[in-house]
């Protein structure tokens, strides 16, 4: 019985986001500094994102209560307080084998806009040449378009978050999503990611896999 199990955890849910071309440029800081290009990854407006990241009680506290919609409550609260946006911090667990330390990301909400993760700076793993494509993989800088909703690559990269049963968060990437690279993942994740690839990477590229309830939801 000598297998090391100290690093094993139970995954409840996975939130994944395909990296669009503009998302990739944001990660790599390839937008013209003066051009106002994006510096974030867009997650979408679905409030299940907030439940996944376990920030609903923080939002309730921020808004001094939420009746129905978290986004609407935030809109009202931000307008009342003359703030443009609000951010919530998510601790990201370290990765032992490649020595990525514990870090944090921020979930940012701006009035009437989708939830975003600012990438200044990006998580170490999201810009590693070993775990994400390089500019050359996209055919060079000139080949990258400001495409916010799709990724024209046949095998797009993906960023995903794991929420474990202790409500701690982990992030990983897949450099090229194709049937081979995802074949050893749990069936539900394969199903989720195949949906996106089969759909040609159109728009809804954030997805939630809930192992508790055996469900795949495109957000």
């Amino acid at each position, binding site marked *: 019985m000598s*297998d090391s199990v100290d690093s094993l955890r139970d995954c409840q849910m996975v939130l994944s986001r395909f990296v669009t071309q503009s998302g990739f440029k944001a990660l790599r800081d390839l937008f013209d500094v003066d051009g106002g290009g994006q510096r974030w990854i867009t997650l979408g407006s679905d409030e299940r994102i907030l439940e996944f990241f376990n920030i609903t009680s923080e939002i309730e506290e921020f808004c001094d209560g939420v009746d129905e919609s978290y986004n609407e409550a935030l809109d009202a609260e931000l307008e009342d307080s003359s703030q443009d946006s609000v951010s919530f911090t998510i601790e990201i667990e370290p*990765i032992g084998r490649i020595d990525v330390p514990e870090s944090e990301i921020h979930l940012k909400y701006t009035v009437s806009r989708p939830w975003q993760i600012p990438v200044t700076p990006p998580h170490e*793993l999201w810009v590693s040449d070993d775990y994400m494509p390089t500019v050359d993989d996209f055919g060079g800088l000139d080949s990258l378009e400001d495409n916010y909703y799709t990724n024209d690559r046949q095998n797009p990269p993906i960023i995903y978050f794991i929420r474990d049963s*202790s409500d701690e968060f982990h992030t990983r990437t897949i450099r090229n999503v194709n049937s081979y690279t995802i074949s050893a993942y749990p069936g539900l994740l394969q199903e989720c990611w195949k949906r996106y690839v089969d759909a040609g990477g159109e728009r809804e590229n954030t997805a939630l896999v809930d192992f508790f309830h055996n469900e795949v939801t495109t957000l």
Partner: protein
Amino acid sequence: MTGNNPPSDVLPEELLVLRRLNESPNVLLRGPPGTGKTFTMRRLKARLDSGTRLFDTSRVENPFELDIPDFRGETRTEWLTFHQSTEYEDFVLGMRPQPSSEGGVRLKPRAGVLLSLIKHVREGNSGVIFIDELNRANVSKVFGEFISVMEADKRLDWDGNATASSISFTLPQLNEGDSIEDPMSEQPIDSFERPFYLPRQLYIVASMNSLDRSTAPLDSALARRFSQIPFEPDYDLLRQWVDVEEDDPAEWISDSPDDTSVGALATALLYRINTLLSATLGQDFQLGHGYLDSLKEDRSDESQIRKLAEEWDGRIFPKLQELFRGREDQLQPILRVETNDIFQADVLYESELDQLGQNTAIATASLSSIGDNDRLRRILWVLAGGTD
């Protein structure tokens, strides 16, 4: 069932069983009593019921790749504890009399756990049957024709296709078109394709005491159809429970009872008994660490020594008596006495104390009844191997 949190940590034994299930759909946990077989199965069931997926936080590339089954779809688990009255009808298929429309009685097929789970798996899900105390039932009879199709290569492949080595089985009790009542589902089973094949995603995890004199040994034909995992007394785990850092058994017992912690005393006691049991009866007759699991609760030193005495009286000594019934003389080295009349406890413990240079008679067989903790500690220290 899904939605409950799994146990917070993962045991090495759980991972071992899961990895073995990836190779063989039938796994048997085999070992002496108290070595954690049932505990491991219960943990695994809770984990599978939660619906979560294990992953390795230290891995960057596919942290889910652990060489364990995927458990596709909804995983349904069933727990059975076999006993002498467990029958084929409970496990595979029974026939229950029901009034017929013609006024007579007809036999209505009723699915056992196995058939019910086969249906569940055929709907794109996974199923795991946990069988505790496998050899307490007449296993060949309970499993019936299922024995001949349960190995991985006799089943359907992972994709649900029959291969050249797949073997089907028939259930002669069924007539064409029979609807089978499923007590574990609201829906009857009425769409089984025949002949039957066993799907790969139906797993069996069973446990049995390696040498239980109160049961028959497992049918060898059945035993070889299971991938077996031996369970043994785990002194490292016991040391964790009782807070003993030293891992060298020679260091557990000090020169005097007062210098030996109760945890070290307990660990040394179990180790010494098992060393002697292995030498006299064989390794399968050892006592598991579970015999002392009550010591993992945090207590004062005084309470802990009394708890150890209770476990000796209530669990360890009775088991030794059972193992050496009819040949009590072989108990002498374990108890460190030189009389055949070892079940006269006053003789036993008087003898022990005499050996230690004391001369106080003890009027009862129970260590727990000894009021003087110093004396109790000294007796346990002797039983654990301590010498002046």
